[in-house]
């Protein structure tokens, strides 16, 4: 294992998981605030169990796929996923689309559950549990994909998983202490950084999958990251200028 590739993989898994876990935590907290910790904990546990099942089912299959095919497929998926995040983060930084607001998500989820409570009081615990399960499952799937994507190509699944687990632990600890949505997390900055890293990994794996031997080997990742960082910043700056021109 070389640090030039292990460090970006662990960092990408940690930061991406931080963003996703904060989003899931906001919804689980809304459920817990309105209906108590029991349905929230049950939904979360069920979500984590389904995720574990998916990983246990699909994990061994990864070893059977030829490495170049795995690198190509994962590389392309990472490119699509990472560039999507970077695009959104650039547009948010330019003020073209609104920033993700955890307080607003918390308020919206609480309002939805309150409305359900008004309509059908009996099945509310069930509905609250399902809401928590969905949040954990949907955001968790993204975490699982990122961990597999940044870790599977070079046998870094364990360090990447540890990065993701550290993010879960950090969010849970902060959440337990604060008991409110973690709205102070600089989510767009994190998404910008993770988008840069995932896009860099995407180009790297896609190229290797196509049979390209990148000059500098793993160090090429740093060059790709710098390239995507510059692209995101240039895109954001151009988008800001364009929206100001149209506004005036």
């Amino acid at each position: 294992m070389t640090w030039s590739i292990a460090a970006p993989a662990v960092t990408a898994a940690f930061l991406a998981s931080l963003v996703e876990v904060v989003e899931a935590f906001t919804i689980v907290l809304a459920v817990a605030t309105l209906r108590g910790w029991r349905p929230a904990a049950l939904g979360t546990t069920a979500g984590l169990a389904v995720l574990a099942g998916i990983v246990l089912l699909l994990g061994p299959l990864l070893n059977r796929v030829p490495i170049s095919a795995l690198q190509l497929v994962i590389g392309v998926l990472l490119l699509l996923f990472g560039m999507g995040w970077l695009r959104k983060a650039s547009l948010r930084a330019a003020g073209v689309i609104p920033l993700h607001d955890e307080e607003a998500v918390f308020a919206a989820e609480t309002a939805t559950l309150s409305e359900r409570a008004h309509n059908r009081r009996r099945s509310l615990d069930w509905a609250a549990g399902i809401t928590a399960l969905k949040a954990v499952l949907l955001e968790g799937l993204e975490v699982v994909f990122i961990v597999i994507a940044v870790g599977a190509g070079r046998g870094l699944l364990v360090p990447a998983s540890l990065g993701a687990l550290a993010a879960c632990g950090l969010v849970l600890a902060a959440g337990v202490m604060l008991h409110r949505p973690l709205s102070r997390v600089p989510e767009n900055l994190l998404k910008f950084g993770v988008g840069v890293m995932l896009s860099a990994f995407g180009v790297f794996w896609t190229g290797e999958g196509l049979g390209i031997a990148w000059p500098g080997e793993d160090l090429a990742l740093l060059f790709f990251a710098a390239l995507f960082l510059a692209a995101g910043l240039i895109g954001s700056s151009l988008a800001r200028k364009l929206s100001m021109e149209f506004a005036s």
Partner: protein
Amino acid sequence: MTMLKELAVELVGMFAGEKRLTLAVLALVAAAGCLLDFTTLNELIAGAVLPFGCVLLLIENVCRSARARAS
């Protein structure tokens, strides 16, 4: 069933949230693959199409989205 649908929508959205960008990236990867397999072009020149092409596609897409939202 509704949850499965939502799960499927979320999964598709993860990779194909912006259709134009998705198609452009897939076309770029296919073009880089063709350059490597079917031409005698130097591997690194063909490979350079990938990072530099992605970067141009990203900037173009961000500007296009900003223009579309502003107008």
